[in-house]
């Protein structure tokens, strides 16, 4: 598919998914009322539901989906490994430990978000420092350091769950599975997503080369060391932002870049924006389902991303690479 039509199609799908998220729920808001509500008119309960409940959450889902997909593409290139995802270097583990500690202490949403951001950034600094060490900063060393630190966080998480009082457990488990029900301030995430995309698009062709190894990239004129540093910092910060808002929502960051590589190839000039839009669509649909599928009870959105993503991905894998 040609790049521009594909991006336009994905953009339209994003808008449709967003509108769907605004309409569907315990009270259905008809599509005919949406324009009036969104442009500041309309009234009553529908207006409040859309503007105060559904729109912030839908925009948060859109932003988090985009952030995770973008970070996933970058992590895969940074580590030269198609199995990498945004969480592989332990950023979500660090965030989870922070968030769970805040939840144990009975912290409010803001405290939980702050603690998870601190945990994510702390983990990022820790992994970077350890991977740097005395030796060479190779993708393998970075990957191993991150995986081991992530395993360490996993042990701490299990410990916290084991000692947590009964009444705190549901909230902690929801956080771990990824949940957007407390995401009511989408603006920072949207800004970070826009910034992340703006910073990575100029590097798109460099990423094509770095994906084929640092030597090949260097031989073709890429300054590898600053590029890798930028990738690490950017991917980590995007992941930290996503995890702070939505918890560790699985699957989006691994599967969306993969699906897009299968569908459109590995040119990052197309892959980066297409992944952002596809991640946004996937998470918007998954979160809409999470709110409605067994309403009035809500599911953690992470369960839905896996339930939607697994069959979709397996189908594409069966179909094979594009002709």
């Amino acid at each position: 598919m040609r790049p521009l039509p594909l991006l336009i199609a994905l953009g339209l799908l994003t808008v449709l998914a967003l509108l769907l998220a605004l309409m569907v729920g315990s009270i259905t808001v008809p599509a005919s009322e949406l324009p009036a509500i969104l442009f500041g008119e309309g009234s009553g309960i529908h207006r409040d539901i859309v503007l105060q409940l559904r729109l912030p959450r839908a925009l948060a889902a859109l932003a988090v989906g985009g952030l995770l997909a973008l970070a996933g593409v970058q992590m895969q290139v940074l580590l030269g490994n198609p199995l990498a995802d945004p969480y592989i270097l332990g950023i979500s583990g660090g965030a989870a430990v922070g968030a769970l500690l805040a939840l144990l202490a009975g912290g409010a949403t803001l405290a939980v978000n702050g603690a998870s951001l601190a945990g994510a950034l702390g983990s990022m600094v820790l992994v970077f420092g350890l991977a740097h060490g005395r030796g060479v900063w190779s993708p393998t060393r970075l990957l191993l350091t991150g995986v081991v630190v992530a395993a360490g966080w996993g042990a701490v998480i299990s410990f916290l769950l084991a000692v947590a009082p009964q009444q705190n457990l549901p909230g902690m488990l929801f956080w771990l599975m990824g949940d957007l029900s407390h995401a009511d301030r989408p603006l920072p995430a949207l800004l970070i997503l826009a910034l992340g995309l703006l910073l990575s698009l100029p590097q798109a062709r460099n990423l094509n080369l770095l994906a084929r190894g640092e030597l090949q990239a260097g031989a073709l004129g890429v300054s590898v060391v600053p590029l890798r540093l930028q990738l690490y910092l950017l991917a980590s910060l995007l992941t930290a932002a996503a995890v702070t808002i939505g918890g560790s929502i699985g699957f989006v960051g691994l599967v969306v870049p993969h699906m897009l590589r299968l569908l459109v190839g590995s040119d990052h000039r197309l892959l980066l924006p297409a992944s952002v839009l596809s991640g946004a669509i996937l998470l918007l649909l998954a979160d809409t389902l999470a709110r409605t599928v067994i309403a009035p009870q809500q599911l953690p959105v992470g369960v839905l991303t896996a339930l939607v993503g697994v069959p979709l991905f397996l189908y594409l894998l069966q179909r094979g690479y594009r002709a």
Partner: protein
Amino acid sequence: MTRLTVEGLAIQAGGRTLCQGLELTLAPGQCWAILGGNGSGKTILLHTLAGLLPATAGTIRLDDHPLAALPRRHIAQRLGLLLQESHDPFPTSVLETAMSGRHPHLGRWQQEGDEDHAIVHQALAAMALSGMEQRVVQTLSGGERRRLAIATLLTQTPQLLLLDEPLNHLDLHHQQQLLHQQRRLAREGRTVVMVLHDPNQALRYCDRALLLYGDGRWESGVCEELLTVERLSHLYHHPMRLLRQGDERLFIPADEGTAGQTHSPSSH
């Protein structure tokens, strides 16, 4: 005209000195062979000459500018390196891969134009890959992937070509074609440096050779004079023999039964 000069270059790796006090001038029109045993530092030298590894001592100049101070893009516009192995963890098409050779010539936001496409198609044709543009690299055979890597190097259109074991995975026909092509490029005014494992190919297709003994010692010179039974026996730690047929000279390794008994040059 691109010229690479090497002064007093020392390379150490893994606690060993691989070469010491290396002096070289790689000038337009020259076709060089680098010969040496396994682990003698051929690849490290090539990467150092490409500016991808720092030298332990000495300076490398690209057209009188210290290589270490030049931007990578500037270097890549003039100097191309064929790696010993290519590495493609993600699915990409043959066309996309070959097109990546144009990277150093394109601005940050510049799209590939008609001229770039023409160069790529010419390079793919030269490596007998025409018609495979849309194939996914992972589905190619080892030899086809090698030819694609060489096509990417040609697409880069460097004045100075450094090739690390370019004949790996190639069948006999494509080996001969590649050697012939590189010699022609050198005669047309480019500089070619190839790591080879067969001294006969060096003798036939290259005009100069650099021998790396792996312990810091090195020798360089015109192939005709430099390549002798004594030196090659010493270089490969294996007795060699010389066959003459008319004007042609052919080095062959001595029988295995006699190998390993002596590291000193045999005298035939």
